[in-house]
């Protein structure tokens, strides 16, 4: 069994396997919306490989991090703009 990691998505407790992306933690938490566009439209991940920047979230207080590229760490605090 892979090791589990616990973190928070919008204040909610979530557990994922070690090696999972932050995007995976959002999906486990049932969150599809990562950010709001300049006109306020909801947006979620598109390319999955770090190119489109649609999956940006705030991680441990740092804004605009690409959730598809960053791996979960224990006790991370993730916030979406949804």
């Amino acid at each position, binding site marked *: 069994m892979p090791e589990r990691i616990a973190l928070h998505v919008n204040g909610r407790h979530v557990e*994922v*396997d070690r*090696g*999972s*992306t932050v*995007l*995976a*933690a959002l*999906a*486990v938490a049932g969150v*599809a*919306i*990562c950010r709001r*566009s*300049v*006109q306020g*439209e*909801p*947006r*979620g*991940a*598109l*390319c*999955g*490989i*770090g*190119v*489109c*920047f*649609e999956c*940006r979230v705030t991680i441990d207080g740092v804004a*605009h991090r690409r959730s*598809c*590229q960053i*791996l979960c760490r224990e006790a991370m605090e993730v916030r979406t703009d949804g």
Partner: protein
Amino acid sequence: MAERRTEVLVIGAGPAGLAAAAAAAACGRRVLLVDDNADPGGQIWRGEGRAHLAVPARFEVRCGVRVVDACGASAVLAESAGGVERLTFDRLVLATGARERFLPFPGWTLPNVVGAGGLQAMVKGGVPIAGKRVVIAGSGPLLLAVAAYLRSRGARSLLIAEQTGRLRLARFVLGLAGAPQRLRQTLELRRALAGVPLLTDAWPLSAHGAGRLEEIRLRTRRGERGERCDLLACGFGLVPNTELAALLGCRVEAGCVAVDEHQATSVAGVYAAGEMTGIGGLDLSRIEGEIAGYAAGGDERKARAGLGPRRRARRFARALERAFALREELRELPDARTLLCRCEDVSVGRAARYPSWRAAKLHTRCGMGACQGRICGAAAAFLFGWRCEHARPPASPARIATLAAQHEV
């Protein structure tokens, strides 16, 4: 700023970059291979790339390192969690791969409308797919590979909508008779997908839902139909990543980095291999990587051994290109209000008022957002026939510290 010297620097640890690094190391060169992903492997071997490294690897691999700009003729600027550094080289091999092409249609910006290869990457990164209803749409063999992968991970139902025509596809499969190994791969894939409907002449017309995807409209041979689904995974072929090469001054032609017989670019000492020099798939990427690696390492004889296999792999790439060429009707998918640029929320209608990509960028900020036109540039090139390759440093949004450090040198 920290500085690292190496004889051969390889950027991109996909199949092409891994092959190049191994070949250059076999020539006795000191080789450094860098990639911005957390692990080597590129798109196809995402997360399992270590298994494809010869053990013990005779070159150094560093992941989580993103090259953001050129830095004179024999160095590049790279950033990582550890900060900014200058990587200096005698020879450089670029192997930055490709990304998917996304075409706009009403609703394509809804959450849970994703890339096809993109969804595969997300699931490899831990996004749960079990029990989900997925429609995979667009074009090319990647759609089938993704479907087979998602099925193996427990997706509940799958439907594939391939835009190319039934006859073209049949002709392509018949053409595989001359390549038994590829034919076997295709049949195996088809077997893995037994029971999964594969529609040809079919494409998404629109996506609908409140805050996230709920339903799509599909155009099929039998007319329009609705389909309820959790995810729509779209990919209309691949687009070479040429931005970094362009920043280094390499000539880019028809969207691909131009190379000579030995994979050398127009800039002395700089080679390029893999999807960035033209979309050709795994085999071609590896062969090109090997040629580039031997050429950069100084063993011309070994480099030339790859020329025959490369010719055959290129022939197959051309057959693929013909079989999955995008049809004209896809240009009519967006309406005037459909967004073209997702970063700056610029509609297709607004961009269409201008005669060129340059003019549209200037007046609407289209292509000037976080992705720097990587998504909408390829769409605009297809919709309007514009040339959309203007590389401006940095090659990807870099931290201010990186840019500041550059001016210290």
